[in-house]
Structure formats: C-alpha cells, structure tokens
C-alpha cells in the first residue's frame, strides 16, 4: 500500500470517526448559548474556547465535521453518478451522442465553475440540500471525461466482444462488464472531488451563501469568527485547520491512488 494513501486514509478516518461519535466527545450542546462565557480562549473548560454567543467551539467543530463532510461526500456522489452516466453512454455509443455530450462538457468547462455555483445558490437559495445538489451538478465534467476515455478503450477488448456475442444487453455490458474495470480512476477523482466540495462549501460560507446557521459547518464557523479575528484568534484558526486537514487528507489520498493507477510512473 502506498504511504501517501495510508497517511491520507488515517487522517480522513480520524475526522470521519470524530464526526460519527460527535455526541460522545463533548458534554456541551453545539447550540447552547451562554452569554456569560462569551469569547473565552481555549482552556480547561472549553478546549477550543467559546464563540461570540458563548457556544462551545469544540462541540461546534465536531458537529460541523458532520455537516462539512456530508456535504463533500454527497456532492461527490451526485457528480460521480452524473459523470458515470454521461461518460459511459458517450464512450460506449460514440457518434452523435458522444459529440453532443462532449459539447456539453465543453460548455461546463468554459463557465467558471465557482461562479456558476454562486449564481445557482443565489437564485435557488442556500439550503444544505441545494448546496450538495448544486456542487454535484457542476462538477461532473472531469469524471465524465475520464470515464468516456476509459470506456472507449475497454469496449474494444475481447471480453466485451464476447459479452456482446453471447447476446447481453448494452446496459448490462456497461454496468457489469465495463464499469467495474475502470473504477480505479473514478476513485481518484472522487477523493479530489470531496476535497474540492469541502473547499467550495467553505468558500460559499465565507460569502454567507454556504450552509446556513443554526447548522454549524466549518465554513460558517470560520466566517462568523472572522469578525473577531483580532481578539479571538481561535475562532478562525481551528475551523481553518479542520478544513485544511480534511482537504489535505483527501488530496494526498487521491495523489497516492493516482500514482497507483498510473502505470507510467511506477517505480
């Protein structure tokens, strides 16, 4: 196993574990305000300090982990499904279907993705569901292009011919015989996609368009904290580090996986 994948997996695993057992980690409610304990620095009672409403930052961070990572994972699942559908159909059938699909990809690649996401959030409203769907709807192009290229090369192999000769249907050939053989690169892009989606949500939050309070996300904790940056550094530092750790772990996992699936740069 590649070392980078391992380190990334351990880091990401820790974050996921934290998110899953969030209620067991903290005795404070992430929504409970305590105005007599506003803006307390990290200490024995509140290990990450408190925010401007006296809420325990650590509780908000571990619950925020749930929201941020769920947004990342669901958004990527959506984009992967769209990418798989469009990519495999375009790659398998070729011809006019393929060129239409690729024009659509061109269109998506030419609009600045982040701005497209911003517009959709502004015009549809920033709910958690909307944000996941919007990020998913706008980031399927990479996966679609990779799947298309892989399907095009795999469909010429003898086992696909054999499957066709024994009379299997097209959908069955694509789903049962082609897709399982090209999942490697898909996993690579999924890991990068998760980190991208987490960054996108935090960027949207920064503009007040991400996950909305009362739900805590790392992005909106950071955004709320930025007004207190000169007096309460912890409100900016901890969520920033959390976003960084999540993104970094996904990225090195993706990088390690990419090396594994790329025969050209094997040692």
């Amino acid at each position, binding site marked *: 196993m590649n070392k980078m994948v391992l380190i990334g997996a351990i880091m990401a695993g820790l974050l996921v574990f934290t998110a899953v057992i969030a209620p067991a980690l903290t005795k404070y409610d992430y929504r409970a305000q305590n105005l007599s304990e506003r803006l307390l620095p990290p200490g024995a009672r509140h290990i990450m300090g408190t925010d401007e409403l006296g809420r325990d930052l650590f509780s908000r961070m571990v619950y925020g982990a749930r929201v941020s990572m769920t947004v990342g994972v669901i958004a990527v699942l959506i984009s992967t499904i769209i990418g798989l559908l469009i990519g495999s159909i375009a790659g398998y059938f070729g011809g006019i279907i393929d060129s239409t699909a690729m024009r659509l990809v*061109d269109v998506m690649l030419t*609009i600045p993705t*982040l701005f*497209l996401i911003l*517009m959709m959030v502004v*015009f549809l409203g920033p709910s958690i569901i909307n944000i996941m769907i919007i990020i998913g709807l706008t980031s399927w192009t990479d996966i679609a292009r990779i799947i298309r290229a892989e399907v095009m090369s795999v469909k010429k192999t003898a086992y696909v011919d054999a499957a066709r000769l024994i009379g299997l249907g097209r959908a069955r050939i694509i789903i049962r015989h082609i897709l399982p053989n090209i999942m490697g690169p898909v996993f690579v892009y999924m890991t990068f996609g998760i980190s991208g989606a987490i960054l996108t949500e935090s960027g949207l939050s920064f503009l007040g368009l991400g996950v909305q309070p009362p739900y805590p996300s790392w992005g909106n904790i950071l955004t709320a904290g930025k007004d207190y*940056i000169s007096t309460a550094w912890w409100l900016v530092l901890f969520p920033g580090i959390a976003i960084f750790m999540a993104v970094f772990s996904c990225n090195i996992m993706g990088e390690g996986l990419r090396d594994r699936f790329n025969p050209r740069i094997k040692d």
Partner: protein
Amino acid sequence: MKRYLIKRMILMIPVILGITVITFIIIHLTPGGFVKTNMEMNVKVSPGAMEHLKALYGLDKPLYAQYLDWLSRLARLDFGDSFIDNRPVIDKVLERLPATLLLNITSIFVIFILGTIIGVTGALRRNSVYDRIMTFVTFTGYSVPAFWLALIMMMLFAVKFPILPVSGISSINYEMMGPFEKILDVAWHMVLPVFITAFGGLAYISRYVKSSMVEVLSRQYITAAYAKGMKEKEIIFKSALKNSLMPVVTLLGLSLPGIIGGSFIFETIFAWPGMGRLAYEAAMSFDYPVIMGTVTIAAALTILGNLLADIAYAMIDPRIRYK
C-alpha cells in the same frame, strides 16, 4: 492550420450559446427575480408600478422572447445596460478587466516559473528529502483554503506587523504619484494576493512538470544523449526540459476560466476591483444584464485562451499538426 482555426471558430458558437442559455435559465430560476427582490419589500411601490417596471426591463415577456431579445442585441455586440446604475455592461466590464488580468497574469507567471523550477529539480532528485519537502509544501498550498490564508496573512501583515497593504489595487494618494511610484505602489498591493494565488496553484503545475519530466528522462533519446557523451546540463535544459514543458502550455490555457470569473471570493477579500467581484455583486443584486455580460465575456476569453494555447502547442511541438 487555417481550416483547423475556422473549424474551431465555428465550434465556439454552440459553446457560447450553451453557456448563455444555461446562465439565462439559472438567473430566471427565482420567481420574480430583480423586480420582486428590489421592489416587493418597498411599500411605496404599487403593484401597477411593479408591472410598469417589469415592462420597462422587458421582464414581462415570455422567457424565450427575452432570451432572443438578448441574443439579437448580442449579435450587435450590445450587452445592454446594468439594472442597478443604468451604465452599459460593456463599460463596466472593461473597467474591471485590467485589474483582473494584471493580477491573474502575474500570478500565472509566478506559478509557471516557480512550478517549473520545483517540478524539474524534484524530478532530477526524485524521492530525495528536498523532493519530499517540496511536495509537502506545494500540497499544503493546494489544500489550504485561500480565503482563510488571506485572513491569516492580513492579520499578520496588516494588524500585527503593518508592512503590506491588504486592500485595493493602489494607495489613496495614487493620483499624486510619479509614474515610477505608481508602478511600485500597484506592485506593492499585489504582493499578498499574488503570493496566496501562487501558493495555491503551485502544486498543480509543479506536479505536472515533475511527472512529465520523469517520463521524458526515461525516454530512449535521453539515454542516447547520455550515451553519446552530452553534458548532463545540456541534456536537461535542451532536450528534457523543452519536451516536458510542452503539455504545461495546455494546462495554462485550461486554468483560464477559474481565473477570469472564479476569483470573486479572493477579490472580495482584498477589495480588488476585478471582474470576479463585478460578477459577484451582479449576482447578489440580480443585475441580469451584467451577469449575462460577464459570463459571456469571461467564456469568450476562456475559449480564446484555450485556442491560443492549442496554437502555441502546435507551434512548439512539431509532432502536432492540426487538420
């Protein structure tokens, strides 16, 4: 080559049309949109006045008619006027474009130079301590949220140690400076934004240059060059570097869309008077003509950039012949 160019130009048309259709649909997803958002909360505006206003902006027509109107004006290169201040969209975009291009071309340049150096040296000393540290540093830059880093840097260099400007493109007394001072002033304002953009973008280019270089170094013509006794420096700079940098040209072209319209978060933080911020402000105030205009112009610039990258690629790589 000429035929290829014409073919590419023709292919641009459906892409631009697709972009404008998608944008148009998205901005009309909100029922009521501009008029409703800006007027409904205002008790002084009667329903009759709202209808009048809708008619004034052409928002009372069916969607396809509005789109065709917009398109027929676009054909005459008329992007319409802003809903907010009634100024022509093209003027608003043109006054923002230089700042965006200045910041982004500088950043791309810095990324390209540093990325190449890190990539090439990393490939030559693959898996050494130096290579590992560089990979870690560039990956950190790639993973760090840019706006967060911007906040921390602003905190450090503007509040704790006030040595760098943190907002805008020039100082207040800009108009009174001499020409040389003006350049210096703008450059000074660019230090933090360029640093943060470059730090975030380095990983992409350096990783690409590195793997491309590693691959080229294992080619037979490099072994042959060693075998005939060429000096290592000559091999690296003349044969290997040139061949491994070629794909980077395409990468630079592909990084354009993010640059022209995707930098609004960044431009907002640094109060940089660029196109990203114009687009962001337009989206927030439902200023349809400005949204359509910025997206169309950004898309056209991107397509043009990609085309230029392809042409440059064909010019430096004799193996590529476009038909």
